[in-house]
C-alpha cells in the first residue's frame, strides 16, 4: 500500500518532465530572430513552389531556377514591395500552381469540400445507423441492462476472474 503514492509520484514526475521540456522548448522558439532581408526572402519562399520542382517548397529548393526566384524576391523586397504583391507577381507570371494550396475558388473548392462532406456524410450515416440500432430491442440472449461498475471494481473483477482460471 505504501507504494501507491510513489507510483503516482513517478507518473506525475513523468508528466512534469515532459511539460517542463515542452515549456523550455517553446520559450526558446519564442525568441524570434531579427527579421533581416535574407530571412524575409526565406519566409516568403516557404509557401511558394516553382513549376519544375513539384512538391519542393522554394525556400529549400536548390535548383538554379529556384535560386533565381529567391534572388527575384530579394530584389522586389529591396524595391519596397510587400509579401502579397510579390505573391501576386508570381501568380500572374506562372499561374496558381506557384501556391502550395490552391486558392479555394471555382473547381479548387472541391479539394477542400470533399473531405468535409465525407466526414459530415459519414457522421450522419453513423448517427442514423447507430440510432436505429439503439431503438431496436436487443436480440435474444443479449443483456439489455448493464450494471454500473466503477472502473476500479471492474478491474478488480477482471483480475479476480483471471486469478481463478
Amino acid at each position: 500500500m505504501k507504494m501507491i503514492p510513489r507510483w503516482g509520484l513517478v507518473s506525475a514526475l513523468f508528466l512534469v518532465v515532459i511539460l517542463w521540456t515542452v515549456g523550455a522548448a517553446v520559450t526558446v522558439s519564442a525568441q524570434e530572430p531579427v527579421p533581416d532581408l535574407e530571412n524575409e526572402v526565406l519566409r516568403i519562399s516557404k509557401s511558394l513552389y516553382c513549376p519544375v520542382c513539384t512538391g519542393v517548397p522554394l525556400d529549400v529548393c536548390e535548383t538554379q531556377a529556384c535560386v533565381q526566384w529567391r534572388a527575384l524576391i530579394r530584389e522586389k523586397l529591396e524595391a519596397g514591395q510587400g509579401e502579397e504583391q510579390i505573391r501576386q507577381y508570381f501568380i500572374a507570371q506562372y499561374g496558381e500552381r506557384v501556391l502550395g494550396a490552391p486558392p479555394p475558388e471555382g473547381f479548387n473548392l472541391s479539394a477542400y469540400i470533399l473531405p468535409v462532406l465525407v466526414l459530415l456524410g459519414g457522421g450522419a450515416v453513423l448517427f442514423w445507423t447507430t440510432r436505429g440500432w439503439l431503438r431496436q430491442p436487443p436480440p435474444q440472449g443479449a443483456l439489455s441492462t448493464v450494471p454500473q461498475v466503477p472502473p476500479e471494481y471492474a478491474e478488480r473483477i477482471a483480475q479476480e476472474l483471471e486469478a481463478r482460471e
Partner: protein
Amino acid sequence: MANPQIAEVGNLALVLGLAASVYVVFAAVFSQIKRRNEFFLSARNGVWLIAGLATLAVVILEWALITHQFRFEYVASHVSRDQPLFYTITALWGGQQGSLLFWVWLLSLFGAIVLLQHPGESDPLIPWVIAFLAFTSAFFFSLLVFVSSPFTLLAQAPADGIGLNPLLQDPGMIIHPVTQYLGYVGFAVPFAFAFAALVTGKLGYDWIRTTRRWALFAWLFLSLGLLFGMRWAYVELGWGGYWGWDPVENAALIPWLTGTAYLHSVMIQEKRGMLKVWNLVLILLTFLLTILGTFITRSGVIQSVHAFGVSSMGPFFLAYIAAVLVVTVYFIYVRLDKLKEENRLDSMLSREATFLLNNLILLGAAVATLWGTVFPLISEVIVGKQITVAAPFFNQVNGPIFLALVLLMGVCTLIGWRRASPRHLVRNFMSPAAVAVVTMVVLMLIGVRDPYGLIALVAAAFVLTTILLEFYRGTRARMRMYKENAAIAQAQLVNKNRRRYGGYIVHLGVILAVIGIVGSTFFQTSAQQNLAPGQTVELGPYLVQFDRLTVTREPNAQVIGADLVVFENGRQIDTMRPLKAYYPAADQMTTEVAVRTTMRDDLYVILAGWNDDGSATLKVIINPLVLWLWVGFGVFILGTIITMLPDPREAKALERVRAEKAWVGA
C-alpha cells in the same frame, strides 16, 4: 555461362513464375468447385514452386548486381564500380523493376509461410487464400514479364554503371523500402483470408483470429516504413523537416490510416460480433491502397521528388484494382445475410461508439490525403488547370482532422465498453481536464501565442494524463489484490493483458510523437546567413561560429564541409560539420545536414552554399522537441510488439473454442 544465357534463365524464371501462379489459381479454385482434393495438394506444391522461382530470379539479379554485369540494363543504371557493396546489394529495391521483383518475392514467401502455419488439409479457407495470393503474384509477374523486366540486356556493356541515385545512398533509405514493402505486402495475407471467408461464407471469427498477427505485422512494418522514411527525409533531404506531404509519403500514410481504422474496428467484431461488413470494407480498402501505393511509388504517375521514372504500368494496375474491387464487393453483396450484426449498440456513450467515431475520422483523414494527392491530376484533366497541392494544403485540411483524432484517443480511454455512466465519466474526466487547464495556463504564461500550437499541446497533455491514469488505476488494483509492489504490479498488468495495455503503450507513443510534431511544426525558428571564416550567426540560445571550409575525397564523391563551433549562453558546447557531397557519376549534389539533438530541441544546420572567397552560407534551424517524435515511435513499436506477443488469455479462449467445437462435433 555467358551473360545472355543467365538473363534468359532470369526471364524464364519470371515466365514460369507467372505460369505457376496462374496454374495455382485454377487448381485451387477447381479443387473447391469439384471437390477434388488432389488439385488442392497440387496447388499447395505450386505455392512452393512460385516461391522457388521468385527466389531464383532474385538470386540471379543479386548475382548480376554484385558482380557488376553491366550488360544488364538494371545493373548499369543502379550500380557503379566505386559504389559500396552494401548499396550494390540493396540496389535490388533501388529501382522500379527490382522493387517489383522484390514485392512478388516477399508475396511468394508469405504464401509459403501461410502454408507452414496451416499444414493440415482441413482448413476450408486455405484453398481460397492460396488462390488469391497466387492471383496477386500472377499480376506482379505479368508486370515483370510484359512491361518491365529486370533482366533486359543492353547491346553492349558500358565500362561503368550510373550507380544508385546518391540521394538513396543512406542507411535509412536502404531500410525504408524493405519495411515499407513488408508492410504493403503483409496486408495481402489478411485480405486473402477475408476474401476466402467471403467466398466460402465462413464469416465467423476464424479469419479475423487467424490474421490478427498478420495485420499487426503489416501495420507495424508500415509504421516502421513511415519512421525510416521520415528519418531519411530529416537528415538527408536537408529541408529542416521530416514530412513534406509528398505523393509518395502520402501513399505510405493512406493505407496506414485505413489499417489503423481496421485494427480498431475488428476489436468490436471480436468482442461484440458487430461491424462485419465494415471490417471487410476496411481490409479491402487497406489492401487496395497498398497496391495503389506501390503504383504511385513505382510509376511516377503523380510527379514527385521520390518517383524516379515514368512507365506504362497504369492500365495493368487499374485492371487489377478494378477486378479485386468488383469481385469482393459482389461477394459482400451475396453474403449480406451472413453478415448480420449479432449485437446492438447499448449506448452512444460507450467505447464501441468512440471506435466508430475513430473509424470515421481515420477514414476522413485517408480520403482527405488521397484526394489532395490526386487532385492535381483531376484538376488538369477536368478543368485543364495545373495546380500544386502541397504542405500548406494538407496542413490546413488534415491538421484539424488529426487534432480531433488525438482528442478522441483520450476520450475513448475514459469510456468503458457497452455503456458508460455519465457520473463516472465526469469523474474520470476531472484529472485529465485539470492537467490540460494547468498546461494551458503555464504555456500562456511563458509566452506561447500560436493558437494551433497551444490547442495541440493542451490536447496532448489531456490525452497523456488519461493514459497514465489508466496505468495507475490498473497497477493500484493489482497492488491491492496481489500485494505486489508497484514495479511488479506494473509489469504484470501489461504482461497479463498484453493486447489492452500494449494498445495503451502504442497510444502513449503516438502522444509523444504528437508532442514532437507539434513542437517542430509550430515553434520552429530559422535563420540563414552568409558568413566569412570567424563570423557567427545567433539563433535562440545558440551561437554558431563558422571556422573554415574543408574538402575531402571519398571513393565515389567529393565532399565539402563547413567546420562549425557551437556556443550556448557563451559556453562552447559542441562542434558541427554540415556537408555537401558531389557525385560525379550521377552529376548530382546531396546534402548531409549536421544535427545536434537534446530533449529540448534539435540544432539543425545546413550548408546552403559557399563562395570562392572561403565564405559559406549557413541555414540554422531550431526544431523544438523533435527527439520526442523518434522516442514516441520507439514506444509505439514496443507497444505494437507487446500486442503481438502470445497472450495467455487468448490461448485459453482458443482452447475453449476448440473444445466446444470438438464437443459439438462429437
